């Protein structure tokens, strides 16, 4: 590995990491479901791109497979599942409810990013010999936080599901920089697990839509202590 080409790989990885974070924020605040879905696909592509950069830079064909699996599950299979789950709701021009205003959500997102970074910093220090960890670990944890934040502040089941998947992508974004030899069985099952989980949750969303006439789960509040 030439030092100069390593610099370029490092910079490229950072470039995709920035996009990865940006699209995660976009999903937190996207107003319409279609926009959120579009951002989700871009988000998966940023993950794939980072995996490709790492595969080339670390000369690891294994990460190449990871990139391929990621692309086929997250950028193709899962968005298709999401489209199916949303059904006709996808094309509604309705604006998606937020618990907080968008401005406030964005500020909290910024604070969360900082917290994530402070949390993961000791780990980055503790693992020498993993050059890309300095970019990927914080970025991954930030995406996990943003995904959790999405689930918390959005009242729309579809977007909450996207938040869960963003968290999952975040975990993988972090891990490709440190684990480049996940055993094959774990990898395949992870690849199968994600679309299955998305499908089951999608089916649940379709049922909620059928029974409640809407996917705005934030407005379902029948179950409380004093009823």
């Amino acid at each position, binding site marked *: 590995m030439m030092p100069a080409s390593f610099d370029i790989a490092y910079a490229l990885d*950072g470039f995709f990491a*920035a996009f990865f974070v940006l699209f995660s924020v976009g999903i937190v605040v996207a107003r319409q479901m279609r926009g959120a879905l579009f951002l989700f696909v871009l988000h998966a592509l940023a993950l794939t791109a980072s995996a490709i950069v790492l595969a080339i830079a670390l000369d690891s064909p294994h990460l190449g497979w990871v990139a391929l699996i990621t692309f086929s599950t997250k950028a193709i299979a899962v968005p298709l599942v999401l489209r199916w789950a949303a059904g006709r709701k996808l094309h509604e021009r309705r604006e998606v409810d937020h618990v907080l205003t968008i*401005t406030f959500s*964005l*500020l909290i997102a910024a604070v969360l990013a900082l917290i994530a970074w402070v949390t993961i910093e000791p780990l980055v220090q503790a693992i020498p010999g993993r050059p890309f960890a300095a970019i990927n670990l914080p970025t991954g944890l930030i995406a996990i936080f943003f995904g959790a934040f999405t689930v918390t502040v959005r009242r729309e089941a579809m977007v909450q599901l996207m938040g869960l998947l963003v968290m999952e992508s975040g975990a993988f974004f972090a891990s490709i920089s440190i684990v480049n030899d996940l055993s094959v069985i774990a990898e395949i099952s992870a690849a199968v697990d994600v679309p299955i989980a998305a499908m089951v949750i999608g089916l649940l969303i379709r049922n909620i839509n059928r029974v409640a006439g809407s996917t705005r789960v934030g407005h379902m509040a029948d179950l409380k202590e004093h009823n």
Partner: protein
Amino acid sequence: MSPTVTHLVVNLIQVAFLLVFAPLLKGVLERLEEIIQGKRGPSVFQPYRDIYKLFGKDEIVSQDSTWVFRFAPIIHFVMPIFVVLLIPALTTMPLFFAFMGDMLSVGFYLSLGGFFIALAALDTGNVYGPVGASRSRMVGFLSEPAAILVYFTLSYVANSTIPYVVTASWAQSWASMLEPAHLLVVIAFFLLILADEGRIPVDSPSGKVEIAMIGHSNYLEYSGTSAALIKWGGALKLMVLMIIFLNVLVTPWGLASTLHWADVLWAIPKVLAKMFIFLVALAVIESSLAKLRLFRIGEYLAAAFVICLFAMGVRLVGIA
């Protein structure tokens, strides 16, 4: 020629470059948008004709207005010219006035023009003027924190707030252009340009309905020479922002590296080519977006602010 004289000559070339080509860029942008919308559009030289025509017209000034009203267009026109002396418009090496003011002062000069225009709009007593003034101030209040953060992030990268030094530090290598902080700042600054210039997601430049205007209703009362200065000044401001965006941030290449007059003149077509590409992108983006509701502008600018904050955070923690 002594160095001082050379610097002065190059500075004059820069100012002339700004004054001459600003209306053209405005015309090109308008033409491009019309073409994208499937129309033929006016000639790219239409802004020159407009300005020439306005200079020949009589000016009407309200009896109730004060000196602020007469004075504002001049400030609006002059401030971009001051700014161009501070930024790398055609050359990479710092010119005579380069160390007179840094990026913050660039921001101050540009907002000073906006401030006087808002005052003038209040001054006339026109119904729509104060509405536009208050709205454009609202946008200004929200965009300025983000703008200041952009400047700070940039200067943190270069360890300097002088635009020339920032350009030099970005232009060092390809790799530095890919840094996450850089990317994020570019996006945030682009959002701010759209807001500051009253372009589409924030304001509609071609709108003709006074009640929906944000910044454009500030100019309703002007006629004759003042109107020409306002129009020309608006074009200058757009061009100055483009110079900062392109020459300092996105593509710090194609500038003259010596002060020889031939080099400097050769830089003009290169910079214009970059600007043309930028205008095409701007026209496409503007045509594909819809105007935001007034109260959504806060969210739009908060997004710019947060993106800046990320950029600053990424820089501070030294990830890249």
